């Protein structure tokens, strides 16, 4: 796509705690907002007009909602800065939210929910479940996807009420990459300063400033996974479990040791092509997938938010081997607090650094990084600063954060045939045990 001038990305990011309590809870107000984007606004009569305007500057736009932020992004030619900021301001502050658009959004949400329950990849569903288990009934534990019963209840006034409370200047950041600061500020003044948003400037409904409280717990979903394949090729029947523990927020000093720990655990699917930088020497590959060929998947994830974080491991295997699988994962967790080999740590640090630098080569990623950091900390750590901090992580740091993490109650999510799943108390005991073993149970009939 040959373009003149510089390509850049800019947009607004909101620290709208989309996951927090808002009438029926959940991130659903944001989902309809993101779906019709670009919907019609006061200045642009329809979605097509917006796209046509952007096309003149070779631009593309996107809107994404995650648990703690909503992002409206545009990538376009730098000559179109003025038009694009105006467009963004309009989309964010003056959406018309016609009944037709809301109805289309509702349909999109319904489709997304159906898709979620049908697809063979359990990842998004498991992520929801582990959050629900870890943060029982509060903040991040509330459903990100709108529950079916609530879709019909969302209308313009509900959306406006949400926007009034959460789309406020103190929760917004306008970020730009590849554009001069002064020019961006000028455009911001022109389009964002002093405008009255479409939902009026009435008093905000109580803004939920809840602190995320990690509770730990278990969420189970029994489901027949014997025929999840959508095509003619059969998919093996698997039970999926995810075990998580509270880590720390990205604002704390311990965040980087956790990130390095997460890299060190690594993992992925057992049917993986591998390759340099893939993590073939990470613990979950070396100790789990390479040794136990019946495990289909063992992957480590680290979710981190402004006031809390969650480190979890996802594993899948045949339903008859769930108990063994759980024990393997609890062993891996316990070993995190054991000795950390220096070579292993250096490899993980290098992998993290290179992943960071590779991702930051793309402007949209830089933009997201700038927006997120400024939103959370009102400042930005530059990539080389982060690399220096990563280099400073020592084996003692990893051991310390892992030991602190293991004291807390675990969060467990399980999906599929759960007849062989150990009780939550046994998982808890295994994590407190120094070799990670589940308590022995004696069974007469196997």
């Amino acid at each position: 796509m040959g373009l003149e001038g510089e390509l850049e990305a800019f947009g607004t990011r909101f620290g709208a705690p989309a996951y927090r309590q808002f009438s029926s809870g959940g991130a659903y107000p944001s989902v309809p907002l993101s779906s019709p984007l670009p919907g019609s606004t006061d200045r642009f009569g329809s979605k097509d007009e917006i796209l046509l305007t952007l096309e003149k500057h070779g631009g593309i736009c996107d809107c994404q909602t995650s648990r703690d932020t909503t992002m409206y992004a545009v990538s376009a030619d730098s000559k179109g800065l003025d038009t694009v900021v105006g467009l963004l301001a309009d989309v964010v502050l003056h959406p018309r939210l016609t009944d037709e658009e809301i109805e289309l959004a509702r349909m999109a949400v319904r489709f997304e929910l159906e898709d979620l329950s049908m697809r063979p990849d359990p990842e998004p569903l498991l992520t929801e479940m582990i959050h629900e288990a870890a943060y029982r009934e509060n903040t991040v534990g509330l459903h990100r996807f709108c529950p079916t019963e609530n879709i019909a209840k969302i209308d313009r006034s509900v959306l406006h009420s949400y926007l009034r409370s959460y789309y406020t200047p103190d929760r917004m950041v306008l970020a730009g990459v590849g554009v001069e600061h002064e020019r961006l500020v000028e455009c911001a003044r022109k389009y964002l300063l002093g405008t009255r948003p479409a939902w009026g400037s009435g008093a905000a409904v109580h803004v939920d400033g809840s602190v995320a409280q990690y509770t730990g717990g278990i969420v189970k979903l029994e489901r027949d996974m014997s025929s999840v394949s959508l095509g003619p090729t059969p998919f093996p029947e698997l039970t999926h479990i995810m075990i998580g523990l509270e880590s720390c927020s990205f604002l704390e000093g311990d965040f980087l040791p956790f990130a390095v720990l997460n890299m060190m655990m690594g993992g992925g699917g057992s049917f993986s092509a591998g390759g340099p930088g893939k993590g073939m020497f990470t613990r979950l590959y070396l100790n789990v997938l390479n040794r136990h060929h019946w495990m289909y998947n063992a992957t480590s994830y680290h979710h981190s938010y402004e006031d809390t974080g969650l480190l979890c491991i996802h594993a899948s295997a045949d339903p008859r081997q769930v108990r063994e699988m759980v024990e393997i994962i609890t062993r891996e967790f316990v070993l995190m607090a054991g000795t950390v080999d220096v070579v292993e740590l250096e490899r993980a640090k290098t992998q993290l650094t290179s992943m960071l630098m590779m991702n930051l080569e793309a402007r949209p990623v830089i933009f997201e990084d700038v927006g997120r950091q400024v939103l959370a900390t009102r400042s930005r750590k530059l990539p080389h600063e982060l690399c220096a901090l990563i280099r400073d992580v020592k084996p003692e740091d990893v051991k310390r954060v892992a030991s602190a993490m293991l004291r807390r109650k675990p969060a467990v999510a399980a999906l599929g045939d759960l007849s062989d799943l150990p009780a939550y108390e046994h998982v808890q005991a295994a994590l407190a045990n120094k070799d990670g073993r589940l308590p022995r149970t004696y069974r007469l009939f196997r």
Partner: protein
Amino acid sequence: MLPDCLSAEGERRCRRLLAGATARLRARPAAAAVLVPLCSVRGVPALLYTLRSSRLAGRHKGDVSFPGGKCDPADRDVVHTALRETREEVGLVVPEEHVWGVLRPVHDQQKATVVPVLAGVGPLDPQSLRPNPDEVDEVFALPLAHLLQEQNQGYTHFCHGGHFRYTLPVFLHGPHRIWGLTAVITEFTLQLLAPGIYQPCLASPELPRG
């Protein structure tokens, strides 16, 4: 300005305010009792907390709480339970005369009653205590001044079935986060000791549940 709750005048006031509840609730059977130890650490009024051992089985492992535990049939009343448990867990002997009174009971998830007992334990050095390692990993004190600062106070709304149910306070930026029932009991204590200074977080329509 933090009232001098460690003074004799402060103590009399608290005892007077708690007298009614204490008389009513002392002998009433409850599932568990905890001691809220108001101590003076290097001259600064503070509350003493424990970090429950991660080796404990059960729902409260690794949690921050006040010293305390289940009521035993051999205990005379809830005050006796709180004092006994404190002695067993933390190695701190609190004479019964130092108990100021009984605070409002709280209910945990299983609807079991937990009765907080407030006692003034005087000057104390948390480092000198020898907690029982099977039950308690760490003992620490949080100054009242810290708890009363707004930036250290937070709250969390809890939902169930898609509806808002209740709000619980949370106290931040200490060595460990104080949440759940312990935070609720802390709130009751602060309301008693520093009325007007401490703004309780939004009240819930139902009794606070852990």
